[in-house]
Structures are given as C-alpha cells and as structure tokens.
C-alpha cells in the first residue's frame, strides 16, 4: 500500500467521522421542527448537541485541509467545480454556527424564532447537499483533460445525485432522532423513538435503492460487503430502537453511516473523482496526489493527531453523558 493509498483511506476516515458526528447534529437540527412541540423542547434538542457540534464540524475542515494537502488536484477540481452548491453549504454552516451561539442571547420572541428557523434550514440543506455532492463524485462528472469541471449546476442535480441527497437527509435525520432518544428524558424521548422508526423506514427504502444503484453502476465484491453491512446495520438499528435499546440503536445507525460511506469510497478507488467524459481524464490517487515527502509528513501528523482527537472528543461525550429534559434548562440570563 503506497502513501497515496493510505491517504485515500485517511480522507475517507475524515469524511466518515464528519458524517457520523455532524450527521446526528444535522439530524437534531432538523428535528427542532419535526419533533419539538414548543420552545422548551426545541431548546432541549439544541442543548443535546450544544457542547459538541463545533468539534463535530472540525471533521469537515480537516477533511478539506487534508484533501488540499494530500490531493491538491482533487481539492481544486471539487471545490471549483461544485461551486454554487458548496457556496450554499458554506452559507448554511456560517449561519448555523452563529444561530446556536446567539439564539439564547436575547429574550425577544422574534429573535429566538428566527434563529430557530435558521437552525432548521441550515441543518436540512447541508444534510441534503452533501449527499448530492458525494453521489456526483462517485458517479463521475464532466471533467476535461485539464481536470476542470466543465458541466453546469444543473448537471449536478441528476436523479442519482438527488437520490443520494435524499439518503443523507433521511439517514442523518434518523441518526439524529436516535441520538435525541438517547440523550433526552421525558415525553420527548418517547416521541423521538417513535419518529425514529418512521424516519428509519423511509431511510431504509432510499438507502437500499441508492446503494443498489451504486453497486450495479460501479460496485465489486468489497463494496457489496459494505452494502450488506450498511443495510443490515440500518435494520438492526430499527429493531434496537423498537426494543428501546437506545445506545445500541445509535451505535448501529452510526455503523450504517460508516458502512455506506465506506462503500462509496470503495467504489471510487483508485479514482478520487472520475470523469464522465473520458476515463483518461479521471482524477486518481496517483495523478491527483501530493509528493511522497508531503504525504509522509502528513501521515505522521494524522497518525498522531487523529487518535488524540478521538480520545478528547470521546471524553467530551462522557462529560456530557447525562440525559436532559425541559426541567434541566437553565434560566436564560439577559
């Protein structure tokens, strides 16, 4: 295994980390409208992710930064090619971060309601758009011999990609509902479980269709294994949720994300961004990667930093392990 292969795996790990973690906090953001009945319930949901959403988001920044360093051509083609969707994602992430931090800082009804709308939409849109983006990466887009994206925005909104968007949207919402059931107490916990079942069934249909399509399109033996794991984990997550085993259910919905994203990366390899115009113009781990020296330094950095990050982020979840309900909300100080 050469260094650029190692880095393909590491980039996959960073994206998996991002979707696993931000996946449920996007989901919780969406649930503020789907599940919460009033402001205290919305606050409960927001506070389940309050201490952790910012750290979760850094997985994206790391994936972006690491792609820049390890696969500059991939970084350049992807972000200049998917320009407008990415712009929309960035706007959402900006508003979302401010919304969490500022919502409770003024008592006015309008102020709080507007930021709550913002939290919902800025969670929903990226949850959908990341699926669209990844489906397009896997499926291949119009890339010319200079590695420039020559398609239009419309080309990115093809049926396969839209289905991909639907999968991440529903899967993250399910993951979020399971997380909410795990982290809350009282009436909202029960309702989170019931909602998780409904959303989970829709997710199962979308995910099965999308993953099968992917398998038929560009799959092999390994990707089939990942597909089976993803679907089995999703079914098991639903069963565990039904049985009230919230911890298991969350671990399994997380496993679904891990397996599904793994499958996408497996079908991608050794390409990083295939061209739909000509296979000679594919960006691959070889022609898109940095020099061995850079990759070596980056490998040292990632090998040391990533496990440490996992330890202290894991510790954070342990510190904030208590369930919360409306009775735990602090009186806002204004």
């Amino acid at each position, binding site marked *: 295994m050469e260094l650029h292969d190692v880095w393909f795996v590491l980039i996959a790990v960073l994206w998996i980390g991002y979707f696993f973690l931000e996946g449920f906090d996007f989901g919780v953001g969406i649930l503020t409208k789907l599940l919460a009945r009033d402001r205290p319930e919305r606050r409960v949901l927001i*506070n389940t992710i*309050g*201490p*952790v*959403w*910012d*750290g979760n*988001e*850094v997985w994206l*920044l*790391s994936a*972006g*930064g*690491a792609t*820049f*360093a390890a*696969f*500059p051509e991939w970084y*350049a*083609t992807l*972000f*200049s*090619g998917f*320009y*407008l969707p*990415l*712009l929309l994602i*960035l*706007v959402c*992430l*900006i508003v979302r*971060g*401010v919304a*969490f*931090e*500022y*919502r*409770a*800082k003024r008592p006015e009804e309008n102020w709080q309601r507007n930021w709550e709308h913002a939290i919902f939409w800025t969670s929903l849109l990226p949850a959908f758009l990341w699926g669209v983006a990844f489906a397009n990466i896997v499926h291949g887009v119009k890339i010319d011999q200079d590695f*420039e994206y*020559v398609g239009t925005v419309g080309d990115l909104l093809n049926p396969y990609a839209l289905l991909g968007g639907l999968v991440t949207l529903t899967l993250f919402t399910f993951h979020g509902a399971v997380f909410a059931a795990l982290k809350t107490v009282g009436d909202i916990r029960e309702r989170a479980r019931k909602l998780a079942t409904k959303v989970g069934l829709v997710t199962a249909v979308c995910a099965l269709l999308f993953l099968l399509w992917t398998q038929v399109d560009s799959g092999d033996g390994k990707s089939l294994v990942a597909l089976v794991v993803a679907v089995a984990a999703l079914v098991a997550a639903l069963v565990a949720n039904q049985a009230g085993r919230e911890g298991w259910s969350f671990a399994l919905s997380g496993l679904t994300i891990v397996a599904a994203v793994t499958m996408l990366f497996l079908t991608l390899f050794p390409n990083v961004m295939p061209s739909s115009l000509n296979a000679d113009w594919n960006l691959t781990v070889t022609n898109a990667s*940095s*020099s061995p*020296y*850079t990759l070596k330094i*980056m490998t040292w*950095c*990632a090998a040391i*930093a990533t496990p440490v*990050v996992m330890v*202290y982020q894991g510790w*954070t979840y342990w*510190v904030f392990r*208590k369930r*919360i309900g409306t*009775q*735990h*909300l*602090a009186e806002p*100080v204004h």
Partner: protein
Amino acid sequence: MDLALAPETLARWQFGITTVYHFLFVPLTISLAALTAGLQTAWVRTEKEKYLRATKFWGKLFLINIAMGVVTGIVQEFQFGMNWSDYSRFVGDVFGAPLAFEALIAFFFESTFIGLWIFGWDKLPKKIHLACIWMVSIGTLLSAYFILAANSWMQHPVGYRINEAKGRAELTDFWRVLTQNTALNQVFHSFSAAFLTGGAFMVGIAAFHLMRKKHIPEMRTSLRLGLVTLAVGGLLTAVSGDTLGKVMYEQQPMKMAAAEALWDGEKPAPFSVFAYGDVDQGHNKVALEIPGLLSFLAHSDFESYVPGINDTNEALQQKFGPGDYKPIVPVAYWGFRWMIGFGMASFSLGLVGLWLTRKRFLLPAALRTGEDEVPHLVLLKKPLGSKLTRLYWLLALWTMAFPLIANSWGWIFTEMGRQPWVVYGVMQTRDAVSPGVSQAEILTSMITFTVLYAILAVVEVKLLVKYVKAGPPELTEADLNPPTKIGGDSRDADKPMAFSY
C-alpha cells in the same frame, strides 16, 4: 471583459473582503481567550469573586466574538479551492500541509475545548474547567501560527522545488517552512498586535463602566490588566514590526519601497511622513520627510542605500522578464501609515493610562484608592480634574477599535504590497484564479458573502453592546459551588444546567 468585473478582480475582492472581515475576530479571539483564562486562573487561585465575575463578563464577549471567528474561518479553508483552483493545484503540495496541520491540531483543540468550557461550569471540577480555557487559548495560538507560516511561504517561498514535469511546487523541507525568519517574525508581529487589540478592547470597555462608576471592582482589575496588555502588546508590536520590516527589505524590496513611495533609490534615504504621489510620472509631487530615517529602518544604518520603486522594477524585469512589478503604490503607502498610526495611537494611550493609574510607591499615599473606588488619574502629584478624567475615559472608549483598523491595514498592505505576485517570485495572481469558474458565479459568491457578513456584523455589534452595557453578571449558587466530580455531582437528578443554549 471589463477589467473591473474580471474574475481575477472579483476573486481578489472576495478574498480581501472575507479575509479582512475574518481577521477582525481573530486578534480579539486570540487575546481575549488568554485574558479570560488569566482572569479565571486568578479566580481559582485567590477565590476572589470579582475575578469570577470578570471571567464571566469577558468570557461572554469572547464567545460572541469567537463564534464569528469560527464561522468566517470555514470560508477561508475552502475559497482557495473555489476561487483559486490553479493556485491550489500549483502550491497544494506545500501550502496544503500547514492548513491540514492547523485543522487537525489546532481547530480540533479549540472547538472541542470551547464546548467543554461553555457548558462545563457545572460538569467539571474547577481546575479541569480552567484547563479547558487554556486549551482553547493554546488552540488559537497554534492555529494562528500554522496559517501565518503558510502565508509567510507566499511572502517568501522556501523549502520547496519546482517539479517541471508536474508543473507544480513541491515541498522539500517542511521544518524550514515552519521556522523561516519571515514566519517567525510574522507570528511575533501578529501575536503582539493581537494582544494590543485585546488590551485596547478591555481598556475601552472598562473605561466605559468606570466613567459611570459601575461594576468598579471588576472594571478596576480589567482596566489594569487591559492597560498592561495594551502597553506590552504595543511595545512588542513596534519592535516586531521593525524586525519584520527589515526582513521585508531583504525579501521584498518592492513592497517596502512602495510603503515609502520612494520612487528612486537614495543614500541615505529619508522616511516619508506625508507624500502625494503621481503614479504615472513615477515621482512624488509633495513630500514631507525625515532625513536618513528610512535607511535606518531598513538596515539599522542612517547612511545606507535604499532602492526605490523604479530601480526595483527594473531589477525585477531583468530577473523575471518584461512586465510591471509595481503594486498599487498609494494603497501600500497609506496602508503602511494607517497601520502604524492607528496601532501606535492605541499604544500611546495605553502608556499614558498606565502612568495615570500607577499604584503603590509611585503614588502619594493620599491618592491611593481602595478596591471598590474608581482609581484617580494622577498626572504628577494631583489627580486630573473631572473634565480631563472624563476625557481620558472617553478617548479610551472611542479608540478601542483603533487596533482593528491597524490590523486590517497591515494585512491589506502586506498582501497588496506583494502584488502582482500571489507567491512572491514564483506565481502571479492572475495565473492563480479558477479557470472553470464563471464571472457570474464569482460575482454571486462575492455578493452573497458581503451581504451576509454585513448583516452578521450588525447582529454581532448589537449583541456586544448589549452585553457590554449589562456588565458582569451576579454570581449564582452554582457558580460558587463548582462540582468535584467530572460530569457533575449528581445529588439532584432534575437540577438545571448552569448554562444552556
């Protein structure tokens, strides 16, 4: 295509707008994290309640600020790929590494521990909770270090080679990129300017409350802490600015000649206080100068030769081929002056304040004030009159944003002074833009970010004003009884959180 709307121009405007905006929050984040951590340390060590109230007060302002810093930083990470894809392809092998290090090491640190700090008041024992804000502070410093090393490589590329076959720059010595003198001097200069900024911010707000005789114990402490930070930060900013200037005279003589609007080389060269130039004719119409000072600033020698814009341009043409290697001279010239002027104005005010509020043996016993009294402003042996006292407080309040202006112009100067290069001597800015991104797309994104940032600026400032006016909060039972166990002491399962969104 109309040059004013050419993709290169638009991409540069967007980079300028988003970066200057982002950097309004960065220095305040860096300094307020450390200052808040310092105040909390004082609380943990002395258990004096005024320190905890001050920690909560400045911590709140810090959080309002860092939220903006974090979200505007996301754009910085991605716009290289979006608007500058040819730049990214060419330099990614070198430039990407410090960015990835920044994310993997610094951002994770900052973002994870900030969550622990915000929500951890009733979940973490006192000392661990204190350690969290120090971790955040270390994260902010590390983050700034890596990104400044990356920028320094654009100013003065080292530790790389050009791979002709692949048509790109490749890293050969990462340690050199991280430790070259440009990087170390930029880090020194930016860090000290960050503390100058935070000091002025703290002094201005403390002055606001002291003028109204509100929250005196906390604001007395804050005033003193702010003044010391401002004075030390200001002094170090001046010192590091001087050494960075000397480095730049070696590495980018054009930038420094433009900073002085020195059209033709002189020996000894004067420092220009004021000049009105005529770019087309390559000389100044009006100039007010201090003889020999520029020679000294460039080479620590009042007699040395300093090359001018015209000679440097010719030298660069011989080295890199025909072309115009001049930056926009008035921007460099005035940017340089505004950077120094606004920064040093704050520094001076800090020095004056430090003297006026001196304590102990420097002050006659009769004029010393207690913990809950507004300090007298004493010039020599007598306190200033009420009008002059008020004037000082007002000056401190009105000038508290001066360092922000200085920082912005410092960046505008150093980035625009490097033009037409994006990587000095290696790649020109016009070759760096994304060839596949249309004018309409860049225009859309530039307008989107500008409008969004403008709205958020209004929201942020209003929120800051509200919390500044509110002053330090009253302490609660929970504040004074921090938990002894990680995760909180679980005596009462329904006990409300100390803080929630």
